[in-house]
């Protein structure tokens, strides 16, 4: 007798994803698809894609998808959810999209406690456009626009989005997870499933920040990029749950 331990989730389209080899966007896509499958919600889920490497997310999920302008995914998701409150609505956004040009949209969607789920992929740089500094770039981190490393005097300080949004009353659940190991991937999947479940229960705004790698722009091999994430990103962006269920609209 054989039992399936792992296979491609039904909510993940059977196409080649545009991501670079070893980019953990693919892992996070799979976890989102598994969360949709776990709720058997493929037919009533609507995703909102962002701008950035994940701009083609609408091709990768087997549910209804909408493409939003740069940073505006939470506003678009708000509209969709209010018109179709019985659907599961999620956004999938990178750090350049969510923490920079979309900072206003995410803050106010969270403050309103909109009943949507935000998947926030943080790889500490703008991946698609060539590895420029993002709001989440670490101090001292070299990017194409901070070739000598990010200097707070001229470039400011990185933003911990999960902690910042957790100070608001609106959100029901905010957590930061990572995908650097099989164990971490399991925990990340559990957090994403929990966020979708809370939305289905009408608990309000949920956001999962996922620490991700960018091997190409970090200039590292995929396995070294995971190591760099553990040694550099996690000390500044600690994993954990920052807001649990009490709030919500």
């Amino acid at each position, binding site marked *: 007798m054989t039992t399936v331990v792992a296979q*491609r989730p039904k909510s*993940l389209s059977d196409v*080649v994803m545009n991501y670079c*080899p*070893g980019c953990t966007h*693919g892992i996070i896509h799979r976890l989102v698809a598994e969360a949709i499958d776990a709720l058997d919600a493929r037919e009533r889920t609507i995703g909102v894609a962002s701008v950035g490497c994940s701009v083609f997310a609408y091709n990768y999920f087997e549910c209804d998808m909408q493409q939003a302008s740069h940073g505006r995914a939470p506003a678009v998701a708000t509209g969709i959810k209010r018109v179709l409150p019985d659907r599961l609505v999620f956004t999938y956004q990178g750090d350049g999209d969510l923490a920079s040009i979309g900072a206003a949209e995410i803050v106010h969607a969270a403050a309103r406690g909109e009943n949507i789920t935000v998947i926030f992929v943080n790889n500490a740089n703008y991946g698609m456009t060539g590895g420029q500094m993002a709001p989440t770039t670490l101090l001292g981190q070299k990017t194409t626009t901070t070739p000598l490393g990010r200097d707070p005097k001229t470039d400011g300080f990185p933003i911990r989005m999960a902690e910042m949004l957790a100070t608001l009353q609106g959100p029901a659940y905010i957590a930061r997870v990572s995908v650097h190991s*099989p164990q971490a991937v399991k925990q990340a999947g559990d957090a994403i499933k929990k966020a979708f479940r809370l939305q289905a229960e009408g608990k309000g705004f949920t956001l999962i920040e996922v620490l991700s790698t960018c091997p190409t722009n970090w200039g590292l*091999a995929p396995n070294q990029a995971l190591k760099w994430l553990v040694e550099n990103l996690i000390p500044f962006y600690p994993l954990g749950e920052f807001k649990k269920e009490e709030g919500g609209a």
Partner: protein
Amino acid sequence: MAGKVTFREERCKGCALCVEACPKGIIQLSKRFNAGGFNPAECVNEEACIACGFCARMCPDAVIEVHRVDR
């Protein structure tokens, strides 16, 4: 108990995250090239597979399927 692991080689990008994740060290990149120009990952000793699924969990392209075979 043993595992059966299959790689969809044409979709593999040869990132080798599965090679790192395998606790038994039985996955490696092959010398072959697929149509994408990558060296796809393969299991070199399926007898030793424990069906933990770690390789599939770390695969960014969802090309790995793992089955547990109960004997």
